[in-house]
């Protein structure tokens, strides 16, 4: 029994499918665009020497999505979904922009003030406000879902729509440019040659991993996602488990908003983090977590996010115009859904089983 054929064990692993999808895209890149994997060292006047190349871009630009995918994984594992993460990103970005704005409190905001590389608010406070805003949004979603018992899709739809309005209210309806060099560090800086955002993702991933695997929260989340009623009957507060998942998802969205606004040097209530909720859901699904909840893998979701960004960068490298990106993504979504269908899996299992034993017995 212990000796399941190696191939089968690999195929049963949660990481198999997202890694396979990633490998296919990278292989495609290797053939079509041999320069894709080139990584060079660039001497940046502001941030010093650092690596650059398509793969670094995937990590750097994909960081917000990876963060959101981590939070989304927990929410989906409880059997819910959070449609508001894109809006949460916008709120968090707006919060940062408005606090950095040196004219804060002044009635007249001139372009001259906005383009001054200065702020009156201490940076830690800005970051704290960013994170607090997003976390509060998550808490709100969590309360609606767990206490008011509104269906997750409807509950988070409220903030998905209202959130962008809130973001615009914060910035007074303007697209607010940010001019404050220390703030840019999060989305553009480098540590030891690697983008800062990579470290942030690693840190949040570690935090999430500790939270779900070193406490009982992970088990409770899976249990709630599989059978909320049985879980409740076992003495677990399924309400608090859900509340935590949504709050954490908001927190992740807030960090994503921080990085994103830092990267693009602006806060735009309408466009910051647009469609991120859908990409995050796709990333989680690619990571093998069922939309109905239950077992999840944080790492698989992050790889799922990586697949989406590698795909995006690939499409750009091929010279596909930006406005065709969504159409190209639709193809990706379709392939993923087909690949993950029960039918395909059964087919693959049968396919491998017919030839698998030869490998299996050899071991």
């Amino acid at each position, binding site marked *: *029994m212990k000796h399941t054929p190696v191939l089968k064990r690999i195929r049963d692993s949660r990481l198999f499918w997202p890694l396979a999808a990633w490998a296919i895209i990278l292989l495609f890149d290797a053939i079509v665009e041999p320069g894709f994997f080139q990584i060079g060292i660039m001497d940046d006047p502001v941030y010093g020497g650092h690596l650059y190349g398509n793969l670094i871009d995937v990590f750097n630009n994909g960081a917000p999505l990876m963060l959101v995918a981590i939070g989304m994984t927990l929410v989906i594992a409880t059997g819910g979904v959070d449609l508001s993460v894109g809006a949460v990103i916008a709120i968090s970005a707006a919060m940062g922009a408005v606090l950095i704005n040196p004219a804060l409190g002044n009635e007249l905001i001139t372009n001259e003030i906005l383009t001054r590389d200065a702020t009156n608010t201490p940076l830690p406070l800005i970051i704290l406000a960013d994170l607090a805003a997003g976390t509060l949004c998550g808490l709100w979603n969590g309360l609606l879902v767990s206490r008011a018992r509104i269906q997750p899709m409807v509950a988070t739809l409220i903030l998905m729509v209202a959130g962008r309005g809130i973001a615009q209210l914060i910035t007074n309806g303007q697209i607010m440019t940010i001019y404050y060099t220390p703030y840019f560090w999060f989305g553009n800086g480098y540590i030891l040659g690697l983008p800062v955002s990579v470290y942030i993702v690693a840190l949040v991933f570690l935090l999430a991993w500790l939270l779900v695997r*070193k*406490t*009982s*929260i992970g*088990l*409770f989340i*899976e*249990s709630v996602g*599989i*059978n909320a*009623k*049985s*879980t*409740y*009957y*076992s*003495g*677990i*507060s399924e309400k608090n488990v859900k509340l935590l998942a949504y709050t954490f998802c908001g927190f992740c969205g807030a960090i994503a908003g921080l990085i994103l606004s830092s990267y693009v040097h602006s806060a735009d209530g309408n466009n910051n983090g647009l469609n991120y909720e859908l990409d995050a859901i796709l990333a989680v699904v690619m990571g093998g977590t069922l939309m109905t909840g*239950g*077992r999840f893998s944080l790492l698989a979701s992050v790889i799922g996010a990586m697949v989406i960004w590698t795909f995006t960068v690939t499409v750009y490298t091929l010279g596909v115009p930006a406005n065709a990106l969504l159409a190209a993504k639709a193809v990706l979504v379709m392939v993923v859904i087909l690949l993950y269908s029960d039918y395909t899996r059964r087919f693959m299992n049968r396919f491998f089983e017919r030839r698998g034993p030869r490998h299996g017995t050899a071991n």
Partner: protein
Amino acid sequence: MTEPQNIVTMKGISKAFPGVVALEDVDFALRRGEIHALMGENGAGKSTLIKVLTGVEHPDKGSIELAGKPVQVRSPQHSQELGISTVYQEVNLCTNITVAENIMLGREPRRLGSIHWRKMNELAARAIKRLGIDIDVTRPLGDYSVAIQQMVAIARALEILSARVLILDEPTSSLDIHETNLLFEVMRKLKNEGLGIIFITHFLDQVYQIADRITVLRNGKLIGTFETASLPRVELVAKMLGRTMTDLDAMSKVKFKSEQQQADQAHLVEARGLGRTGSLEPVDLELNMGEVLGVAGLLGSGRTELANLIFGIDAPDTGSLVVQGQRVSRFSPLESLKRGIALCPEDRKAEGVVGDLTIRENIILALQARYGWFKYLNMQKQNEIARQYIELLGIVTPSPEQLVKNLSGGNQQKVILARWLATHPQVLIMDEPTRGIDVGAKAEIQKLVLQLAEEGKSCVFISSELEEVLRISHRIVVLRDRKKAAEYSGEVDDQTIIHTMAGDL
């Protein structure tokens, strides 16, 4: 070649799952116009045999003939087309759509491409009348009791026009005596129409009441097929268990012993006028240390409601509940857990097991709930607890990492018991713990209940099987129409209780 009256002939069927051989070289034959009981303990292979016949599983070896013609049942749909209809143990219908829709689902009469609602309701009403019950088929299924839902499931199975074989998997486990007799009437009628009926049940009485032949399986092997008339009960049980019934004999002695031990102690649990509008009229109830309190009553008499009130699933709106001298003010499962009260709920699938978690995870769930989020039991400790209870309760599994949904009903029930025993409760409420599980596991659970009582714990044992309530209870509370009707000592005879349940006393 084969006798022409055989409608189903299965030969040399084998099926293995990872780690388990579910069926090994099993032969089975069903005649036209017979009721054939399929008997065996949990994990004996009954369900797998049925799954093979209905195309849910494909056999590794063996052949199936239908009316003399070899067939390969490809899928459940295909088996229906071949005329094999099944009603499963747990009702697998949709409670949020109407009775008529449930019966006709997938076979809706159509007119101009859309569903012909009036005709559909007529057809459904006729199908349900055939079973001798009269309900409004246009109301949602969820409005009716589990018993009626079961009847609807049977009506649905019979609606398949070409049905030649009807499989009833534990159809009577949630029916009361009246409803069971009704079902038996229908079964006899169908039998006379020439249908072959495979009847799976754990009620021996019912087998002897209705079955023509009995096939016994044990551990995936065929023990034999017998004419019911020529197989005495004791022999049947011995064949199913592979051992004798001494376990059950020993039980009554344990009961007496603990009864003597039980002195006048303070009540562990004391309910005064505990009730909830629309669910249970106010009841008085005491629970002592080291006793088994049996709760008897018909379906819908308030048995489950009582359990839910004490365990805190529902909050009472009248009366008081005192546990170990402290008045309970907050009602929730978690609070109960902390107070040492445990509940094995009635609906094992929906309220008990978490199917996609492993046995280990299911067992530690309640204990971990008490420890909270941040005091996570380490893997070594989890394995230790899981192994301890797997061994203690005799849960049959290749490994603690097996998913619970892959276990048989009896083993799932044991996992839920293990989950609660791991929290070392003072009060263990069991709502129908032996429903739908085999004689062997039943005896083991009953024995366990008495053992717990002997250790000084107090158990509330709710069951629709009077015989088992009588056998293990020190006191018996009878509920009727959501009220406490009477309370008896354990020495009461079954006639008294039946009359109390029926309201003649």
